[in-house]
């Protein structure tokens, strides 16, 4: 007797019900197993998984496997599978729901910690930089450029300038670990004559709470950022990337 390819003794399908409820446009049942998703996914093969297998396991109700595989954290949620899928199956959405099903304290610590750090201050910085730290670094770097780089005595890096047209955010990496990398951006904005500002609140461009799939924290971060832009009366939320 050969082993059956699939052991369906443990069919639970609770997760499938959740997918059908929370992703009403997820098209789980339209998957015709063509494998286009798996063929174009860099995570194919990791943990002996791929997007096609993952969708099959969801459809077959293999909840134990679906909810225990660390593969959902080895997917970068890049959505190339969704983009390529001829039936518009929301594969990445299912990966997101599987991430949510992990108890928070068992999710990858690095992602959860980055989310927690962002909740510490209204800056939303995943590296935990405070409002004062950010303003200090910006002003310090600006002063140095004005003093040491001829022709840039008038360079600006406004903070909390009410009514500025652009609200520029900034990944924490620059102010925290390589502040000189902000200067080229400021020079470009200066030459373009852009009316812009940073805000001490909400400037952190990154958001690991989404990747941690902590929905409450994700929503909190987005609300803080949106309020920061609106409180300064800015017209455009401008991302550096």
């Amino acid at each position: 007797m050969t082993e059956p390819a699939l052991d369906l003794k443990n069919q639970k399908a609770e997760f499938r019900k959740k997918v059908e409820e929370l992703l009403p446009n997820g098209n789980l049942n339209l998957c015709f197993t063509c494998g286009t998703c798996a063929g174009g996914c860099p995570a194919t093969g990791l943990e002996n998984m791929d997007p096609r297998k993952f969708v099959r396991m969801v459809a077959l109700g293999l909840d134990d496997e679906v909810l225990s595989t660390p593969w959902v954290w080895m997917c970068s949620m890049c959505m190339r599978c969704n983009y390529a899928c001829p039936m518009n199956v929301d594969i990445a959405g299912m990966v997101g729901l599987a991430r949510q099903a992990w108890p928070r304290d068992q999710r990858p610590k690095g992602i959860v910690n980055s989310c927690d750090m962002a909740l510490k201050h209204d800056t939303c910085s995943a590296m935990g930089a405070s409002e004062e730290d950010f303003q200090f670094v910006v002003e310090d770097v600006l002063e140095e450029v004005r003093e040491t780089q001829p022709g840039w005595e008038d360079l600006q890096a406004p903070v909390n300038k009410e009514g500025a047209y652009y609200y520029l955010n900034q990944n924490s990496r620059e102010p925290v670990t390589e502040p000189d990398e902000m200067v080229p951006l400021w020079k470009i904005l200066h030459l373009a004559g852009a009316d812009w500002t940073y805000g001490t609140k909400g400037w952190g461009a990154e958001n690991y709470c989404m990747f941690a799939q902590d929905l409450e924290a994700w929503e909190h971060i987005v609300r803080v950022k949106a309020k920061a832009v609106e409180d300064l009366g800015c017209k455009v939320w401008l991302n550096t990337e």
Partner: protein
Amino acid sequence: MYAVRAGLKKFNIPYNFEIKSIIQLYAQWIREGKLKVNSDWNKDLKVKFTVQDPCQLVRKSFGDPVADELRFVVKAVVGEENFIDMTPNKSNNYCCGGGGGYLQSGYTEARHHYGQIKFNQIKNTGATYCIAPCHNCHSQIHDLNDHFDGGYYTVHLWTLICLSLGILGENERAYLGPDLAELGL
């Protein structure tokens, strides 16, 4: 960018501002003549560049139009003949493997395995520099070079714009290779 756009929608948060990538503005400002970039610095050097399409910006947000804007900026700055695209590209490009929290997840071996595709794509262009206009892409592509001993450099777009404008300061060159480290100083 994507987390804010998707979050505003998912949680039904009302807002009254526009959401833009500065890459769209770089292109606009070059067209308007506000950023007088040119590629003369690279006419004789012929340093080759490729560019990564960040998933969050291209496939997950503004699609091929923003990927075209990105290429318009890059070509204006390094010279059209010195730009070599990856295959596949734009909305079909592969993720570098730095997104989704991967860099923070602790699954380093898996992340390198995942990134092998991106590494091969970059090496197949033959370019000396990969422009990575996203922080996660920049970190991952930089790390892939270290891990697989790629021999290429990973740079931010703002570095090259300022280099082509002749305004890149001495302390703003951390990611340039020795061939460009002192250019225009």
